């Protein structure tokens, strides 16, 4: 029986004295795509940062495939297969696409450069271009590809389709679906409801630093009141 890829229990974290996460409990199961929704200020990005270790959890526990990573440093978790694609993508603008990718290659990863170029033909075309010259969508693909080259055991994405044109959104959604079918569990923070409904097995909604709702794909699609209350202005 495989260990749960990710489990958070009553996690609290702060920015200085600002109490952002006030007891977050959630899980990501094997092969699942789970989305984390919520209005601005609810704590979605902080949750991802706390999991990855960029922000130190003040209380609660985080376990990654059974191992306690609550106090683990970010680079250690990353080495162990916890990949985060942040909102700002983190592309090295001065390096070429190929160089950005080569840095991330890890021995023993299921994904190789060839796999990446096959999955993201656009990146192959632009492989000699500088990172800063890419469009928003291409940068997002590069960021995801880089995470894959690391051979992640869990992938976390922070608003991957924000600010992208509909056509590009479709492309990225398709790529995420492919990644999911390769078996990697995914934790997705996203505000775009259509994207969430298409991809996710389960949804969590954060409100004021806590999980206010958990539902399956079907439950979530059907429940308009919940969406209004926690994502809209229905309070």
């Amino acid at each position, binding site marked *: 029986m495989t260990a749960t890829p990710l489990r958070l229990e009553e996690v609290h974290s702060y920015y200085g*004295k600002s*109490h952002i996460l006030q007891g977050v409990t959630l899980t990501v199961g094997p092969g699942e795509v789970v989305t984390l929704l919520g*209005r601005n*200020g609810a704590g979605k990005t902080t949750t991802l940062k706390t999991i990855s270790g960029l922000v130190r959890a003040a209380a609660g526990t985080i376990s990654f495939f059974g191992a306690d990573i609550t106090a683990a440093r970010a680079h250690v978790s990353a080495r162990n297969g916890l990949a985060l694609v942040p909102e700002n993508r983190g592309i090295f603008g001065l390096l070429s696409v190929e160089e950005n990718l080569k840095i991330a290659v890890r021995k023993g990863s299921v994904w190789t450069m060839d796999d990446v170029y096959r999955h993201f033909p656009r990146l192959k075309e632009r492989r000699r271009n500088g990172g800063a010259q890419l469009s928003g969508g291409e940068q997002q693909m590069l960021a995801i590809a880089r995470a894959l080259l690391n051979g992640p055991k869990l992938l976390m994405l922070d*608003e991957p*389709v924000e600010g992208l044109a509909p056509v590009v959104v479709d492309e990225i959604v398709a790529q995420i679906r492919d990644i999911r079918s390769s078996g990697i569990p995914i934790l997705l923070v996203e*505000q*775009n409801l259509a994207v969430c409904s298409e991809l996710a097995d389960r949804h969590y909604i954060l409100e*004021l630093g806590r999980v206010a709702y958990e539902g399956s794909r079907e439950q979530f699609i059907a429940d308009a009141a919940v969406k209004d209350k926690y994502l809209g*202005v229905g309070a």
Partner: protein
Amino acid sequence: MTAAILSTDGLGVRYGSFTALSEVSLSIQPNTIHSVIGPNGAGKTTLFHALTGRVRPSSGRIFFDGHDITALTDDRRVRRGLARSFQVTSLFHRLPVRENLRLAAQGRAPWQALKMWQSADRNREAITVADTILERLDLARVAGRSAEELSHGQQRRLEVGMAMASRPFLILLDEPTSGMGIDDIATMKQLIADLGRDHTVLFIEHNMGIVMDISDRVTVMQSGRKLVEGTPGEIRDNPEVRRAYLGSMMTGGRA
């Protein structure tokens, strides 16, 4: 119908090629509590920066208390009666709480602070204002402690106090309850409602409970524009607002 205390006409802010705010026309009635809400990237904080003078608008005008203040710097707007609090607490952390408020009170008449020979303790007026606010904010107990020693809730209250101390007509509060626990939120909600009695309050919030409960009017922004404005009830039932928050295929909008 009374004249608006604050109004803007086609206000726009551009950072290079990026348009953060465009064609925003507002009209705020005196002694009302007016909230500004909107999804990610709506431009709410940019609006505040433009209103307080921290950034210069690329287009449009701002009128306050009958005067065109578009060209005024932020410190001069404070002296006209327009004050703000910040989303990320920005106090004089090493100084005592009372001194924080005394400085904020002094800011209404800063040229008096150029008196290099007058001891600060002789500053009766500013000290009195500071003490009054300490009482009103329930911070009198910690008046002598340095600001950084306060709890988060107390610091957020002091943040609001800094805006109150210059005795403004209009107070802008940027996410006053950010990072607060339930109890502190309730206290802050009461404080804002209370402020509305003798000030005009304009505040940005994500906590819909507070927004709907205490606002007289709500302005909804999206992608740098004013989407719609109305009473809390009108906003709650408005399908455009719903769509703005819950989205369609296109996201928050910086394509």
